[in-house]
């Protein structure tokens, strides 16, 4: 089932789903003001969340949502990679394994028995892993969910063969820029901001809530120092510190190591 092309030269965009909540690909449909323009600029060649139509690959840009958590998906991601000139992962599941990677710290057989009456029907891997553990990835976009403007920027940058302008500094910098008083220093509220990549738009601290790390670890985060802060200044016990690092980006390298130091 192919669709008539108005501009044959339009680059082909594909959107793939693995283990996820659909929220990141929904961010593309949430570009209400831009969606029709995006559909002009690129040919939406494969996007099951939005269309029944399917244009065969190869694809110029593949957006990949979700983590690898089944034997079938571990094979399928290679097929996606082979068909994709540029592969961009979108969201915490695809870049860090997602919330479902909490199984990686537990016994998955026991997890299956806890949820399903007939464990023999379930096909799953022992771990939920990011796409980059399986195939080369050209760009990783963080967020749980991703920010739709960052998504548009990344698509735009790749269409124009330039580097995407995505900040890799900590959430703390964004709080300073916005004039948001530090919730940890000012109110003693635990905040993951010092180790978390900015990009959400300063959502939690500006509402009097500590950052809970939706956007994953920033570049070279000093997790041990923050953990010490939680323990010494806020009185967290090891289990509480561990769980702060064990959220949607639990299986990212730096957060995983820090949480395991408190196991």
């Amino acid at each position, binding site marked *: 089932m192919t669709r008539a092309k108005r501009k044959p030269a339009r680059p082909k965009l594909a959107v793939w789903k693995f*283990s996820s909540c659909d929220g990141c690909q929904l961010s593309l449909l*949430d570009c*209400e003001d831009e969606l029709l323009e995006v559909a002009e600029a690129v040919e939406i060649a494969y996007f099951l969340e*939005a269309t029944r139509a399917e244009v065969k690959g190869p694809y110029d840009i593949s957006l990949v949502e979700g983590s690898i958590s089944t034997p079938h998906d571990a094979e*399928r991601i290679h097929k996606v990679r082979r068909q994709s000139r540029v592969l961009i992962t979108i969201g915490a599941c695809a870049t860090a394994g997602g919330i479902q990677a909490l199984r990686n710290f537990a016994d998955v057989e026991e997890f299956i028995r806890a949820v399903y009456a007939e464990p023999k029907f379930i096909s799953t891997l022992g771990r939920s892993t990011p796409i980059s553990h399986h195939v080369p990835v050209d760009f990783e976009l963080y967020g*749980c*969910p991703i920010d739709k403007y960052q998504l548009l920027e990344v698509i735009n940058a790749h269409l124009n063969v330039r580097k995407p302008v995505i900040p890799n500094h900590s959430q703390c910098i964004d709080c300073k820029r916005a004039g948001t008083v530090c919730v940890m220093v000012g109110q003693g509220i635990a905040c993951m901001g010092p180790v978390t990549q900015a990009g959400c738009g300063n959502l939690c601290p500006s509402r009097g*809530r500590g950052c809970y790390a939706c956007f994953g670890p920033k570049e070279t985060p000093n997790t041990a120092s923050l953990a010490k802060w939680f323990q010494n200044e806020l009185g967290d016990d090891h289990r509480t510190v561990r769980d702060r690092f064990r959220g949607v980006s639990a299986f990212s390298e730096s957060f995983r190591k820090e949480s395991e130091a408190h196991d």
Partner: protein
Amino acid sequence: MTDAGTRTIKVDALARVEGEGALYLRVKDGEVKDIQFRIVEPPRFFEALLRGRMFGEAPDITARICGICPIAYMLGASQAMENALNIEVSGGLADLRRLIYCGEWIESHVLHAAMLHAPDFLGLDDALMIARDNPDLVKTALQLKKLGNDILEVVGGRAVHPVNLKVGGFYSLPDRAALGALAPRLEWGMTAARELALAFADFDYPALDQDYHCVSLGGAGEYPILKGRIVSNRGLDIDIADFETTFGEEHVARSNALQGYLKDDGSPYLVGPIARYNNNADLLSDAARDLAGACRLGPTVTNPYKSILVRMVEVFYACEEALNLIRGYAPPAAAAEPATPAAGVGYGCTEAPRGICFHTYALDDGGRIERASIVPPTSQNQKQIEADLLAVVSANLSMDDEALKWRCEQTIRNYDPCISCATHFLKLDIDRE
């Protein structure tokens, strides 16, 4: 998944993408012998991974079950925790919860009705194809969806996985000016929802009448979103705490989602817009009921394809209700009721866009989760989806495979079962003996 003596049909996700719906169908002498609808979503084990986490983490963790209806999970989890910890959330805080839930109904329903379901009735692949002939209709739908998302942003801070909700209420109260700015847009939203509903009412609806057992919240004196008992059109009337003794879930080989049924007799039941409407139409506003009438919906809807119209009536109602809530909003004294960890068992049940979503948790003395159980609407509807498919296929065996396949897809999309499943290619194997 084969029967001895028949052709072997392998419904295998390898040939298609993950998350697809697959249908296995066996026909003998013009009679449907077997029908199986399969959901292939990788298991994510939320009920297992919640154990040991603090009660206050449940809303943010369960939000990640669904990017389209995170409010249903956040508020169902919050209600259950408040029930366990004896916390009462009322007044302005309850109003803000109903307001943000209206936002979710609007964004989720419009996405489904206009972008995912309407193309079926027009024989088109997607909403972008509708936009070629009727760009204004699609632009209106997108702006209406955006309005729903903007309510989520004003009250919740973010459209997908909002950050401002917690057990007991909110982290901070919404900005009054931002709330007020939504009012004129909601007035426009009512007009837009009416316009779309009337446009959709002119679609050609396939004939199908089903005698549904409609299960929804009810009896709270308002069109149900967050409050009420669990009621049905066949006399069911229970406290939400009795959900697990009334409804069961079974695990069948073909699906990674558990299938819901009534424990009494193992029968399927229906949740979602049609069930809500059939049980509570008298609680809609006059204007919403008028719109239902203008869309030629009677007091009881039995044709599942008309769920698209019920959704649009609910979008209209949600815009009107949100407007009333904003106009009548009195800021509460605090953004949240305090929550202190304690042992207990709690229940929560709300009307997600797709139907009732049930949560229960047991907490230990320190407020850590010992047991979690979540029953989303999609699993409750699975058995009924199979029953609908059986009726559709039986009545349309004369269709060629391609037409029947599309009709089956459309039938599944009546349920908006889960966005990934709803729009995925349906693999239809017909074994005609």
